[in-house]
Every structure is written in C-alpha cells, then in structure tokens.
C-alpha cells in the first residue's frame, strides 16, 4: 500500500515537473523518458516553428494579409505550435496514475511499429516534410519563378545568397526545392488517394459479390496490370498535353488494380467470417456490409500498399519528367528539377543532386514506414 502510494506520489511529482518543462520545451520530457520518437519529433517541430516565426517575422506579418496560400501557411504554423505544445502538456501530465497497457489489435500494432526504429525515423521525416511543404510560403527565401540576372547569376554554386545555388535561369534552387516539395507530395498523395479509393471499392465489390461482376472487374485488373505501366503512362500523356491534372488522373487510374487485387483477396477471406455472415443474416444491405464491415477490416494491407505507392509515384513522376512528360515549367517539381539538371551534371551538379537526394530520402521514408506498417500489422512477422 505504501509502495503504491509512494510510487504514485513520485509519479505525480514527475508529472508536475514534466509539465513545467513541457511549457517551455515541448518534447523534452518525453525525450528524457526515453521516447525519442515522439519526443524528438515534438521538440523538432517546436523549435523549427519558433525559428520560422522569429527568422521570418517580416514574411509572417506580410502573410497576414496575403494570398490564401500564405494564410494557410500561417495557420499551419500556429496549428503546429499549438498541437505540439498541447500534446506535450497532456502527455507529460499523463504520468499520473497507473498506465493502462492496451491489448487491442491497434495497440499491438502501434507498439510493434514504435519498436521499429527505422520506421519511426521515416515517419518523423514524413511529418516534417509535409509540415515544410505547408510552410513553404514563409520559408522560401526567394520566388521560385523569379529569374535573376541572366549574365552573372546563372549556375552559381552554393553561396550565401543562394544556399543551394542557382539554375540556368538564375532562379534559386532552394526555393524551387521547397515549392517542388508541395507539387511532388501533392502528386504522390492525390494519385495514390484516387487509386486506393477506386481500387478498394472495386476490389471489395468484386470479392463480395463474386460472379460476373467479379469476373469483369478482375479481367480489367489483369489487363491493366499486364500492361507495362510506364508505356501506358507515356502513351496517354504524350498523346494529350501534359499537366498536373492529367498526370495525377492517369497515375491514379493506372495504379488502382494493385489495390483492387489486394482488397479482393482480403474480402474473400473475410467473407467467410462470422461477423459478415451475421450481418447478412441480419438483413443489412450489401452496400452497408461492404462499406461498414468489410472495407474497414481489409484496410491493413491497403494502408501498407498506399504508403509504398506514394513513394513509387514520386519516383514515377521523376521518370515522366525525364521524358518531358512531367510537370510543365515554370512550376517546379523535384522530378523536373532532376531531369532538367541532368545535362549539366558535370558542371552544375547541384541542380540535379539536391532534388535527387530529396526524392531519395522522401521515398525512402515512405518505404520505411510502409515496411514498418507491414511488419507491425502482420501478426506472423512479429517475433
């Protein structure tokens, strides 16, 4: 009795101390407790956003009355600061009282994931990346489309005014990299979103309904999968004018069969389970069963596939830009920057290298997270 009381007193003291620390430095108490993933991320975001606020104060003030883009960035900044602070406060305070260890599938998965260091690192990178993408109007030192003096400022290497150099039109590479992040991430996210939505729906319908519908959908799936994806993409984009819209649409429409197959497989197994049979017996409409019962349970492999898919899409976009079919100038995207800079690799290496590294690390992070998710969600792979 005394022990638990003593234990809970220490815990409460720790909690109070943690809260005080967290008021200045969100994330620090978590770091001190050894949770480097959550703590590190929180601290990083906190410090980063504070830096933006201070170092770019002028820009921040401008943004108050600026375009929706800038106002969104501002809102993100404030939201990020608030969220991080609030979470850290709440979490530090949670040290009070006995911790309940959850045993649901979800909790098991989360714990398995957290143990995977590379996956957690990947997740941190992704969160920071999306944050940066949203904060770009405040972060970028120059306008990405602004051409400098064509005689003296072209192909300038790494320097004070241009930390990552300039390109063939004397545009700042760092700014273009930041704005390019938004385009690349946007393309990745939206096309995978489209393909996952279509694929999940069609796969679930095919799996659950069976029969002719299944047959037709699977025929189409087979057809699209058998087709060398790149050739299909090139055919369509080369024949019509390339634009972000077309790229996203075509990517989404060529990637859904993979998801469909996965979902169909899952649904086929789930179909025989009791809860589905019960639902059918209860007279729920097919639509309800599919939407409310089957799909949520089939989502695990879909999430994994989607995460990996985002990475793949970003690389694909780079490939399309190589062929001249990617995002059109002057809009920057990582893919176009790598492709445009490849002709001057020997004298202006920074044009291709930084976007190339950006792609590699971003895609790597997505892949690590996807791998981690797969390991965490699949009970057979846990030791």
């Amino acid at each position: 009795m005394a022990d638990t009381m003593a234990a809970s007193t220490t815990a409460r003291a720790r909690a109070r101390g943690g809260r005080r620390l967290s008021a200045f430095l969100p994330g620090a108490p978590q770091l001190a407790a050894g949770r480097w993933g959550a703590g590190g991320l929180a601290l990083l975001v906190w410090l980063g956003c504070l830096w933006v606020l201070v170092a770019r104060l002028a820009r921040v003030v401008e943004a108050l009355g600026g375009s929706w883009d800038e106002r969104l960035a501002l809102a993100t900044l404030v939201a990020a600061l608030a969220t991080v602070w609030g979470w850290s406060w709440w979490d530090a305070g949670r040290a009070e009282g006995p911790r309940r260890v959850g045993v649901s599938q979800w909790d098991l998965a989360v714990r398995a994931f957290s143990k995977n260091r590379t996956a957690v690192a990947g997740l941190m990178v992704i969160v920071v990346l999306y944050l940066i993408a949203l904060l770009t109007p405040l972060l970028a030192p120059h306008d990405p489309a602004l051409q400098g003096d064509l005689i003296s400022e072209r192909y300038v290497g790494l320097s004070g005014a241009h930390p990552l150099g300039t390109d063939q039109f004397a545009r700042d590479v760092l700014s273009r990299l930041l704005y390019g992040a938004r385009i690349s991430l946007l393309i990745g996210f939206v096309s995978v979103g489209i393909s996952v939505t279509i694929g999940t729906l069609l796969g679930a319908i095919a799996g659950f309904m069976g029969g002719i519908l299944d047959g037709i959908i699977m025929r189409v799936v087979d057809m699209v999968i058998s087709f060398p994806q790149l050739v299909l993409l090139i055919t369509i984009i080369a024949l019509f004018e390339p634009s972000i819209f077309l790229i996203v649409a075509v990517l989404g429409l060529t990637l859904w069969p993979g998801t469909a197959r996965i979902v169909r497989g899952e649904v086929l197994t789930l179909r025989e389970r009791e809860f589905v049979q019960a639902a059918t017996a209860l007279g729920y409409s097919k639509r309800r069963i599919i939407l409310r019962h089957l799909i949520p349970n089939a989502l695990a492999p879909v999430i994994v596939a989607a995460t990996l898919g985002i990475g793949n899409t970003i690389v694909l976009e780079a490939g399309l830009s190589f062929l001249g079919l990617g995002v059109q100038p002057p809009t920057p995207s990582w893919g176009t920057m790598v492709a445009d800079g490849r002709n001057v690799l020997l004298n202006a290496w920074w044009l291709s290298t930084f976007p190339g590294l950006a792609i590699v690390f971003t895609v790597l992070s997505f892949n690590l997270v996807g791998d981690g998710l797969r390991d965490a969600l699949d009970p057979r792979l846990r030791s």
Partner: protein
Amino acid sequence: MKKVLAIAAGSVLAACGGGDSTEVSGDPFCQAVLPRVAAYMEQARSQHPTPSDPRYGGTVVIGSIGEVADGLNSAISADHSSTQHQQFVGLMTLVNYDAQLNAQPYLAESWEISEDGRAITFHIRQDVYWHDGERTDANDVAFTYEVVTDPLTAFPNAAFWDHYVKEPEGVEVIDDFTVRISLEPHSEFLDPFRTLGILPEHLLRDVPHDQLAQHPFGEQCPVGNGPFVFVEHRSQDRWVFEANPAFPAALGGRPFVDRYVYRIIPEQTTLLTELLTENIDVYLAPRPDQAQQILDDPNLELLAYTFRNYVFVGWNSRKPQLSDARVRRAITMATNREEIVQAILLGYGTVANSGVPPFHWAYDDENVPTLAYDPTAARALLDEAGWRDRDGDGVRESADGTRLSFSIKYNTGNQQRQDVAEIMQAQLAQVGIEARPQVVEWATLLQQINTPTLRDFDGVVMGWVTEFKLNDMDLFHSARIDQPYAWVGTHNPEIDRLLEQLSVTVDREEAKEVWREYQAAIVEEQPYTYFYFPDRLDGVNRRVRGAVMDARGEWLNIKDWYIDPASR
C-alpha cells in the same frame, strides 16, 4: 539456390546468342546487291592497294543524338544528318561549294549554262563507279532528277525545283556522260545540285516512285559511289562505313581512315562521357554548357562556327493581339536577345534579325535598321498602338478590353526552346505583356501550326535550317498563305514583290540590293521575332587531324580526315 543460378545463367547465355540486331537485312533486294558490293570491293582492294603513307588506317567514330533518319535515299530525305551523309560520305553530288561558297566540280567535271539561262549542261566524270561495279553515268543523273521532281515521290524539299522544268521534258541525256537540264533563269541555280546525292539508276529504276520511301535502299543496303562504302546499319545503334579504294585519284583517292562509324547515343551526358573517355572521336553538337569541359581537356578541341540554322518565335498575325506590326516590333524590342545569346548559348551564337546568316554574301547588318533592346521604346510603341494597362493588373488591354495575353508554344524535348519561351515570359512581363509558355508534343504541334484551317497557336518557338539558296517564299509570300509553312499569315505586298524579285535575280550584286530592301522590310513587318543563329559546336579528339567544319557541314571533308598514327 543452385537451381536459380542455373536458370539465370541459362537464360543469359540463350539471350546472348540473339543479342545482335540483324546485320544483313532479310530483304531480297539487299541480299542480291550486297554480295556484289563485297565482290567488287575485294577486286578494288587488290587493284588499288593502300599507299604506304602512314596517315592511312584507323577508325574514326562520330557520336550524335539523332539517327540518320532517312539513310542514303536522297529522294526522300530532308534530315540534316542524312543529307550530309549523302553529300559527303556515301553518295556524290554534282557540285561542291568551296570555302567562299563558289561551286566546284565534283561528280560533274564541268558545266555550261546556255546564254538565255534556260538550260544547264553537266559533263559527268568518267572514272566514278558505283560500289557494285557499275559505272556512274548521265542516266543516273537523269533518273535522280526525274525522281525528285515527280510529285508522286513526295520529295520533301520540293521548293528546290520551283524554277526547274519538271520531268519528263526537264532533263535530257545527250550522251553517256552529258546531261542537260531545263530551267527558268533564277538565282543560285546550282545550289540544289550541291545537296542532291545522285542515285543509282540501275538499282532503283524499277521501283515505283511512290514506294521509294519504304525501299530498303535508304537504310538497309544503300549502294553509293562516294568515298565511303556502306558496311552495316544497326538501327538506333550505329552505321558502319569503310573506305572506298576505287574512289577517283583525281579527287583524292581513297579516304585516309579505314573505317568510319556513326554511333547514336540519345543522352548528352553519356555522349560527353564517351568523348572524355575517348570511346568516340567526335561529339556532334554538344550543349554550350558542355563546351567548357571539352575546352578543359587537353586531348580534345572544340570547333565552333556559325551555321545556317536560326531560332525564332513566329507570331500568328491572324490573332487580334498580334495582328499589328507595331505590337510585334514592340515585343522584339522588349526582348533582350543579346542577353539571351549570352545566357543560353554562352556567347556561342549571333543575334539574328532576319533569316540571312551572318556569313552569307547577302547579309547586311550595317545598312539595315534593326530593333535593339529598348523596353522604353517598346512601351511607347505599345501605347501608340492603343494597348494600355487600363485596369492596373500589370497587363495591357486594347480599347475594347482584349488583354495583351497569349501563349508561346514549344515542343517537348528541346531545352533551348523551352529556355527561350521562359525568358521571354519574364521579359515581356516587364512591358505589360502576358506570355504563357506552353509545351506541346512535337507531332501535335506540327499539326497545330501546319494545318491551314487550324493554325492553332499564338506564338511558336521554332527553328529553320536554310540552304545557301535562301528562299522565304513558302514562309511569307501571300500566294502561299494556305500552304503548310505560311504559319504567320503574312500578307504584305512589298514583301511579295521583293520575294518574287529575289527568286529570279541571277546576278549577286544586283541581288544584294534587293536583299537589303528585303531585310529592311522584314524588320518592319516582324513576322517572326528572330532570335539567333547558334554556333555549331563539335568536340573533336585531337588524334583526328585535318577535320574542317564550317557552314557547309560537319562531314565536309571527312575523306581527308586522318588519325594520328601515334595514337592508333
């Protein structure tokens, strides 16, 4: 594990065997003709042994991005690489130009033009043989002429023959080595014969003219009479030629090099690497940014010379924003073309004000007024033409509210043209014009600008390669306004008159005057904003000696190139 290895190894070995592209085409024409060539070459080699001069020997390798698209079939080719190979490598033309652009005898020993200027008689050399042993004679010339003037053949440069009498009355074989061609008097009448490679009549006479384009002669088994004999062509990979021992001694005899290989490498960084690692001897047309690398390497040299191609932006004068010549002139004045030459071409180029190349005898930059970069004057001119920024959004409008906003189209895969469009966008914005670069895939773009009923473009970045006989008729003459190349829709009586006069004036001095007036008229009309004549660049390994390249072409004197014996 072992099983996997076995399967892997097996499939690799199996595929290895089939790794070659077909070296001898299965086509019956080729199968019949190539052995004859091989036999004749055997004989020629023993009859004309290689002299003991140490310069003889070795292989020269040229690397380039593009295929020789039409091969050695002069009846259907318009591609620069192909015409160069026809002129200097595999076939022979009647005349060549020297460095002063005067015609010199080549396949034709001599020629006379009749007093009234209506007939030209060529006397053909008698010591030239086709690579399969047949002698080249007047019938070949007559045959070639008939083929290229026949509309059924669809000879791409049909404009060459504007003032020639077409077959069958146009050409007459007088004897085995004399041929007469009928024409109307006009200027530069020898120029087409400088580029037209003569085709073998005995091999192609039975081919219907509309099927020449598909005939294997062009790309699979061309038989020529030039300094180099065709050996093989691996599609998209390489062409291989070897020296012709029977080439007339009076014209220099066999080339110094034993073999000439043309390699196709579609990626410029790879090409540069191959040049720097000495796997290829010549890198054709590197980018200006790569020039420094070539200059820095002690084993390489950079050849740079003005050429006869130019880059321009054509304005569709049918559109309301672009119909006023003052607007077009203002656009040109608002563009800092000198800066663009410095920036995009790194100085390897000359600003262009018309389609006349700087080295051409008709070129005149002193007496012809040009539009210098002057944004203030540009703004004033736009104001005068009625375009003002009435609503303060930075873009000018006309009195009826039309915004001075248009698109500039360019084709995919051409970095330079993209650069031009983007820079224009930035510079025109300074004077209140909104220009939107728009990339279009090449075939689609051609359709958009070439179709007379469509003309779907505002501005388009394009390039022309001219011959030495300059002829803008198809571009600007109002009578041709519904033909494909009249993109801009120019309808100017002064220009019409000058163009007509130019095409018939024979005397160069007289023509110079007219050219001067013409160039001034073009500047006034500004159908195109002419940008620049880019210098041709070539990276050449120093072990290749004697290479002369200028506006006449890169392969100009390839038969006189030799490899330094020490570095073979």
